[in-house]
C-alpha cells in the first residue's frame, strides 16, 4: 500500500468517521466547538500513531488469546500518558476536553486500527495508517465542530458571528450532534456514489 493510497484511504475513501462510522462517541460529544474538535482530534491522532507503531512492533509476541487485552492496555497506557502531559503542560486544552481524554481509550477507531491494520503490517505502514486515520478523524471532527459551533452557539473560534440572531442552541446539544453527523455522512455518501458514477 503506497503512502498516497493510505493518505487517500485515511482521509476520504475510508474515513474512519464518515465511511467506517467508528469513534462516534467522542465525535458527537466533543464536536460542540471547533477548538474542542481539533484538540480532541490531535490528541487522538497522537495516541493512534504511538499505539499503532508499538502494536505493530510487538505483533509477533502477543498470543491470540490475549490479543485484545494487550492492545487495550497499550492504548490505555498512551492515553493516560497524554492525559498527564496535557494536564501538566497544556492546561487550557485539558479543561476543555475534560472527561473525553480517558474515553479516547475506548475510542473504537484506535482499537479497530490496531486490530485490523497494525497487528498485520510492518511498522512504517502502521505509522502512516495511524497518522492518516487520525487526520481523517480530526478532519471529519473539525467539519462537524465548525458546523455545530456556527449553528449551535453562533460563534466561530470564539468570535461572535451574526450579531443579535439567537443561535439554534439545539446544535450544541447531544441531539444536534446526531443530526449534524447524519447530514455530514449523507453528504459523504452522496459524493462517493457520485464519484463512482452513481448508479441512479
Amino acid at each position, binding site marked *: 500500500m503506497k503512502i498516497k493510497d493510505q493518505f487517500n484511504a485515511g482521509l476520504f475513501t475510508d474515513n474512519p468517521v464518515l465511511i467506517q462510522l467508528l469513534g462516534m462517541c467522542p465525535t458527537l460529544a466533543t464536536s460542540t466547538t471547533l477548538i474542542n474538535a481539533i484538540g480532541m482530534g490531535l490528541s487522538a491522532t497522537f495516541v493512534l500513531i504511538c499505539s499503532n507503531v508499538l502494536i505493530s512492533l510487538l505483533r509477533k509476541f502477543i498470543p491470540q*488469546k490475549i490479543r485484545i*487485552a494487550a492492545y487495550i492496555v497499550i492504548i490505555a497506557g498512551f492515553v493516560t500518558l497524554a492525559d498527564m502531559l496535557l494536564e501538566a503542560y497544556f492546561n487550557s486544552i485539558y479543561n476543555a476536553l475534560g472527561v473525553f481524554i480517558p474515553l479516547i481509550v475506548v475510542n473504537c477507531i484506535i482499537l479497530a486500527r490496531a486490530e485490523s491494520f497494525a497487528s498485520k503490517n510492518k511498522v512504517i505502514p502502521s505509522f502512516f495508517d495511524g497518522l492518516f486515520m487520525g487526520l481523517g478523524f480530526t478532519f471529519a471532527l473539525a467539519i462537524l465542530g465548525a458546523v455545530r459551533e456556527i449553528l449551535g452557539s453562533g460563534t466561530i473560534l470564539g468570535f461572535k458571528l451574526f450579531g443579535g440572531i439567537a443561535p439554534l442552541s439545539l446544535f450544541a446539544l447531544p441531539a444536534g450532534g446526531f443530526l449534524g453527523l447524519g447530514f455530514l455522512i449523507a453528504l459523504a455518501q452522496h459524493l462517493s456514489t457520485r464519484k463512482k458514477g452513481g*448508479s441512479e
Partner: protein
Amino acid sequence: MWIDILKAFLALGIMGLIFGGALSIAGNVFHVKEDERKGKILAVLPGANCGGCGYAGCANYADAVVAGEAPCNKCPVAKAEGAETIASIMGAEAEEVRPMVAHIRCSGSHDIANKKYTYYGMNDCLAASRLLGGYMTCQYGCLGFGNCVKKCPQDAISIQNGVAMVDRDNCVGCGICLDACPKGVIEIIPKDSTVLVSCSNKDPGARTRVACNAGCIGCKICEKNCPEGAIRVEGNVSIIDYTKCTACGICTEKCPRHLLEFSK
C-alpha cells in the same frame, strides 16, 4: 521514586498475570472444537454481517461452507476472488461451482397481463397480495411493487413496466429476493443458462389465456420436442432442467405462446 514505580509495576503486573492466566484457562476449558478452515474462511470474509450471502452473518456462512452446505461464491462482497480463496481453503473437492443468478418467472407486464381490479394501497407486494391474491387476474404473477428490489443488496433487480427484471451482471444469486417475493416467482438458476421460462401460471390453459397472453398453457409441446428431454411440464407450467439443457433452441421456436426465449 523507585518505590512508586515498583508499586505500580507489581500491582498492575500481578493483575495482568491473573487475567492472562484466567483467559488462557478459560480458553482451554471453553475450547470449542472448531474446524480451523472456518478461521481461514472468516479471514477472507469482510466480517460486516451484511447478510448478502443469505446467512445471519459471516460466522454462520463460514459454518455452512465448512459443513459443505453452502457454495463458496455466495459472498457478494468478496465476489470472485473471495470465492476462489474459499474454494482453495476447502480443498480440491469443492467441485467447480457454477455461478448462479436469479430469474423472475413472470413476464406479465401491464400491457399483456389483465387486471381483476385497480389497487390503491401501500406500494408493497405483500400488502397487495393479501387482497384476493393481488390485482392481477393471474394468481401467480409478479405484482411489480418491488419488495425484491428493496431487499437486493446488489441493486440487481428493477421494475420495468410493472414486472421485475434481473440485471444478470450485478446479481450474485444470493437468494435474498426469494423470500422477499410473496408470490415466489423468483428462482435461482445457473448464470450461463440461456433458455428461460418466464411464467409460473399453474392454471389450465383455458384460464391462463384469459389472464395473460404470455402465460404458459401447459400444452407440453416443448416437453415433446426437446431432444435432450430437459423440459417437463408440471402443473401446467414448463420447467427446464439446466443440467441437461444444451440450449439448442428448438423449444423456443415450437412454443405457441413464444414463452420460452433466449436470455438477453
